[in-house]
């Protein structure tokens, strides 16, 4: 038994840690979807941009300045993307906004490719969370333990914000009925901006945790975690925050279990097969609200 735990603990730890990082990205997807009914494909690239911001700022600035600056940069980027690429299309068909989102995603990727020359950059070491710790017999980085805790704390705070503040109430109202809440005097644009700000903030935190573990930053290194977080959001029920978090942890852990049993080649295939299954058999996901057609 002890041997079994010893052999498999590292897989589980990696799964929980990567799950927490997916969760922080998935919340950004699910919140934007809940309010705008838009899948923000550029979210994974905002996540990568946060990592690059950190790499470049840390080259010249001390850590206690570069960390908050990175978060501010990411939030501003998310806000700008919304203002420039999505707001002008608010009354356009939903498909147009989605195409715009895909466009922004490629634009960001190629901009990063152009600016950085496309070579892998080493992510700076953030003290303390980069320390190694030993649990039983498994050695890992501190960040592996911190990620799930920090994720849960942030999610609890977010749920409080949504349930107990005025802006939270406005967000809930907008997600229920876009038009009516506008008639009730809610400033839709502000609510949407706040949603993007929160999503980008969490992506920035997620990126710090993710790249502390996996230290090479390339223009496409956010694409895969972004896609998997998207699958997690769909799996948990897109639009639901607890759903996204639970979905992300399940995907993170399942991925590592699949690698543990030796099917390494199929670990990505599993995630996307899961997406297809969910879409066929339970399109609303684990916690998604069932929408009734109103006549």
């Amino acid at each position, binding site marked *: 038994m002890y041997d079994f735990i010893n052999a498999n603990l590292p897989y589980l730890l990696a799964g929980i840690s990567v799950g927490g990082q997916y969760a922080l990205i998935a919340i950004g997807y699910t919140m934007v979807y809940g309010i705008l009914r838009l899948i923000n494909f550029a979210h994974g690239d905002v996540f990568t941009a946060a990592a690059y911001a950190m790499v470049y700022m840390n080259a010249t600035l001390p850590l206690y300045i570069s960390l908050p600056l990175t978060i501010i940069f990411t939030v501003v980027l998310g806000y700008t993307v919304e203002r420039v690429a999505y707001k002008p299309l608010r009354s356009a068909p939903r498909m147009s906004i989605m195409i715009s989102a895909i466009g922004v995603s490629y634009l960001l990727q190629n901009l990063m490719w152009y600016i950085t020359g496309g070579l*892998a950059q080493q992510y700076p070491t953030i003290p303390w969370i980069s320390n190694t710790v030993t649990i039983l017999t498994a050695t890992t980085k501190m960040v592996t333990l911190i990620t799930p805790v920090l994720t849960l704390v942030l999610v609890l705070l977010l749920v409080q914000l949504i349930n107990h503040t005025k802006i939270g109430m406005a967000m809930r109202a907008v997600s229920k009925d876009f038009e009516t809440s506008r008639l009730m005097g809610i400033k839709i644009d502000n609510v949407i901006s706040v949603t993007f700000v929160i999503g980008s903030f969490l992506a920035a935190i997620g990126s710090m945790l993710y790249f502390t573990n996996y230290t090479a930053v*390339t223009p496409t290194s956010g694409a895969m*975690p972004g896609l998997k977080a998207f699958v997690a959001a769909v799996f948990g029920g897109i639009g639901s925050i607890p759903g996204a978090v639970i979905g992300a942890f399940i995907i993170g852990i399942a991925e590592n279990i699949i690698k543990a049993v030796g099917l*390494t*080649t199929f670990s990505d295939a599993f995630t996307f097969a899961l997406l297809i299954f969910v879409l066929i058999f339970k399109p609303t996901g684990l916690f998604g609200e069932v929408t009734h057609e109103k006549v």
Partner: protein
Amino acid sequence: MKKFLSLILILAMLLPTMALAEDYAGEIVIGIYEPASGPNGAGGKQETLGIYYANYVAPTVELSDGVYKVKLVEVDNQSSNDKAPSAAQQLVSEGSSIVLGSYGSGVSIAAADIFDAGGVVAIGISCTNPQVTLGNPLYYRICYLDPFQGTVLANFAKDEFNATKAYTLAQLGNDYDVGLAHYFSKAFEELGGEVKGEEFPLGTSDFTAYLTSAVNSGAEVIFAPTSTEFASQIITQAAANGITIPILAGDTWDSSVILKAAEGTDLSISVSTFFDEGDTGAAAAEFVKGFKAWLNDNPEKLANNGGNDIVAAVSALGYDGYMVALEALKLADSGDRDDIADTVAEVTYEGVTGFIAFDENGDAKRDQAFIIKSDNETASWKFVKVQSVSDISK
């Protein structure tokens, strides 16, 4: 007065071009087909640096009808097999007499048909997969091959670490990784060892699960001949997970990226390569000295080398590749593609990485590899041994 001034100005501008026209009989284009971005970008840039240094040392080539200036044209194949053909086509269209590259076997294989159709001779510099030259009559190469490299490393694992179980890790669908892991496994099994092999998909950044599998399989060496981008992930995560199993890899890992990632850790990393920086032979020592001075003169070149002046083996090979191309031009006595294709097989050259001559496949006849080990305190490579074929019981 104004007219007179402008006349002087025009003359002053014309003068250099006239001087150029007098000095050279013409211009010959050598194409550089290398990745400058993507997973192999770092290595590609080092190889390209070697070529540019060679061009700096020998900017012209003397043929019977005069001295020609060599012009280098560079394309970026982005380390990607599907972007490779259009990059190769660009070199063919821009009138390259001969092409050098690429770092990474996959892109070389992908471009072979394009060079063949254009009738351009290509000289592979560090692409070690047999498929590069096999069935591609115009593709030549100056480095050793993976069956040889795999055998060398398998023997090294056996001799140095007394290993009986090995774990191989390769990128799914990457010709170089998968090929080299295959030849290593074959040789290691022939020596009586046992191998567990796994592959990871492109875009993987979490290697914890693979490393755990390696530990659980009871492997005594990990063989991970991946590109440097994944290598730095593997190294940092192996260090974070407290892995003590020695790691072996092929020529791609001979890069300062690896040294940077391994600095300050307890990992044991051994790599087979083409060239040893500490080589005391006259040609090699002179190359190292000149190349370092050339790098240190220009911050941009230094940055392309990874921000330090450690000489990568691929830079030395890149230097030799350019010199072999010049020999080919001299032997053909023209910059015409067909003339070069007719005579290139006869080229011989004493390079800084050793003597180069081609066999019937267009591969260099190489029989030795250098094995180096990372020194994690000083972030430098330590020379371990030269392994030649004769040392290995075939």
